[in-house]
């Protein structure tokens, strides 16, 4: 997993589905691994294949459509709802995405994504519609996400929007820090807290 992320400039894959739950992103039967690696091949497994041996890819599913590729996944409202499985974020990242754009993210998924340097970019419903339209009109179009500037744009279509990101999390993304590094650095404060918390 590559740590630290700022500018992602790439083609995008449009997934026109709302309420994409983590059971679709990675079905439960693929959660039995004990390492973080290799989940990408089971990303959207049951939407990608009609059967379990991968011999029947569903042509209509966007990941099987050679027209689209890239590091940006664009999805409908309420992405990542359901289970807390971080395997969903691992699978998306492992498949090669660095950014997920939606008009709404489930809370646990958003945290999991940030902890894995997968950038959840939340935009308005209107912008999302325009983004879908631009990508579907020209699959080669570049989408540019700038974490530092907190912007997402499609230069060819003249689209631009800003997005919110917590300042602390932004620093983590830009510098490749994770929360554990920070928490370990304040361990004396935690121990002092415990003394009076009893």
């Amino acid at each position, binding site marked *: 997993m590559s740590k630290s992320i700022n500018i992602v400039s790439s083609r995008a894959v449009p997934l026109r589905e709302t309420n994409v739950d983590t059971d679709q992103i990675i079905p439960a039967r693929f959660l039995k691994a004990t*390492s973080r690696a290799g989940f990408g091949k089971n990303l959207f497994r049951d939407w990608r294949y009609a059967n379990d041996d991968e011999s029947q890819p569903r042509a209509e599913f966007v990941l099987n459509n050679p027209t689209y590729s890239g590091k940006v996944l664009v999805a409908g409202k309420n992405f990542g709802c*359901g289970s*807390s499985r971080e*395997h969903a974020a691992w699978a998306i990242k492992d498949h090669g995405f660095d950014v997920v754009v939606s008009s709404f993210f489930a809370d646990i998924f958003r945290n999991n994504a940030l902890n894995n340097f997968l950038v959840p970019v939340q935009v308005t419903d209107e912008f999302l519609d325009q983004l879908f339209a631009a990508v579907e009109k020209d699959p080669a179009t570049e989408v540019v996400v700038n974490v530092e500037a907190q912007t997402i744009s499609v230069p060819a279509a003249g689209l631009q929007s800003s997005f919110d990101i*917590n300042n602390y999390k932004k620093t983590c993304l830009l510098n490749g820090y994770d929360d554990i590094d920070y928490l370990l650095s304040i361990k004396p404060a935690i121990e002092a807290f*415990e003394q009076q918390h009893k």
Partner: protein
Amino acid sequence: MAKTLFDKIWDKHVVQQIDGGPSVLYIDKHFIHEVTSPQAFQGLEKRGMKVFRPQQIVATADHNVPTLQQHLPIKDELSRVQVQQLITNCKNHNIELYGLGHPFQGIVHVIGPELGVTQPGMTIVCGDSHTSTHGAFGAIAFGIGTSEVEMVMATQCLMQSKPKLMRINVEGTLNKGVVSKDIILYIIAQISASGATGYFVEYAGSAIRSLSMEGRMTICNMSIEMGARGGMIAPDEVTFGYMKGRQFAPGNGQWDRKMEQWKELYSDADAKFDVEINIKAEDIEPMITYGTNPGMGVSVAGLIPGEKDIDDKEKPSFLKSLDYMGLQPGSRIKGKKVDYVFIGSCTNSRIEDLRLVAGFVKGKKKASDVEVWIVPGSKQVEKQAIAEGIDKIFEEAGFQLRQPGCSACLGMNEDKIPAGKYCVSTSNRNFEGRQGPNARTFLVSPLTAAVAAITGEVGDVREFI
């Protein structure tokens, strides 16, 4: 200043507030299980660290354990390895494990409360979204990802931004045949599967107060299904009565001191919530879901929405969902033939749920072409059911009483619903493939599940009581 129940607990647990960023929140109790913990232990070991406060962690095996012949080695190799990994990790890090064969083993959200580990005023986390269940005791409890499991193992803290607060008031008297599962399915149907995203929810009102602890846990359990970070209910005499004398509840020497703290745990009369929603208990009927997210629910006696009732933007997902379920817009679910009935999961596998089902089926037989699986939430629930003779009632009805685990709720073990088959289920999710690839799930209360088991079709419990 007036505080909400959430504020009172949150404020007591903030170790540090980062400028323009999250709070460092201290965690009192951390539950772990075999599926979301291995990579966290691995991460910790990579850093050359030991678990910081092992005595504040409780471990169990639940997600992929078999529900038959648990004394034998697990057949599925990957499941066996994962469960074995948990045993090794807990041993290496000195963590209490209620694994297979232990009298306390069971679904993580069932055993915490029944053992008295879950207590009012605590902050509680687990690598499982249904951790919201524990909020029924007046605790801040929420699900986390594996990186966060690692954080809590390393430091007993989490970086958390304070969520917005929502209060849902359910006032009035519940109708005949309506139980707590119907209340929460009704609420989610009202506000949608994403209606509470970004919020922590407090449930209040006379109808909530009237519920038992088991009923309250069912409500809080499904808070995540409307996107809420968690749900909570202020503790009261019902809470204290449930807790007293439980294995790890404060003993006599501690009880009175704890009670003093717990009695302060309520939202002040003039406390402000970001959103308040009022629901009339009288409006709630026995509920069922028809689609592929828990927000797609209607009265068992009602109609699936018609195409014209759905917003144009939502229509493709709505139609795809009904196509998956093999149902027509505007049609009735009542009378639909069912193939499987599953009574279990962290939503509805407690002793009260089993009693409710047993009370309905006593002296009756299941429909001949329905398979009925009853999966108790824990060894303690199983033991209690046997002590009360509930096992005999199920046996005579032709039900299979299995051994504790998550089972067909998410089908990580052998308990899967075959493709295309209909399952009436007391679990919490009807997502595509949740109970097995292409399985079709109707979410209901234990009472409505009992009706389906006996009649072989979706029915309205009010016609039978």
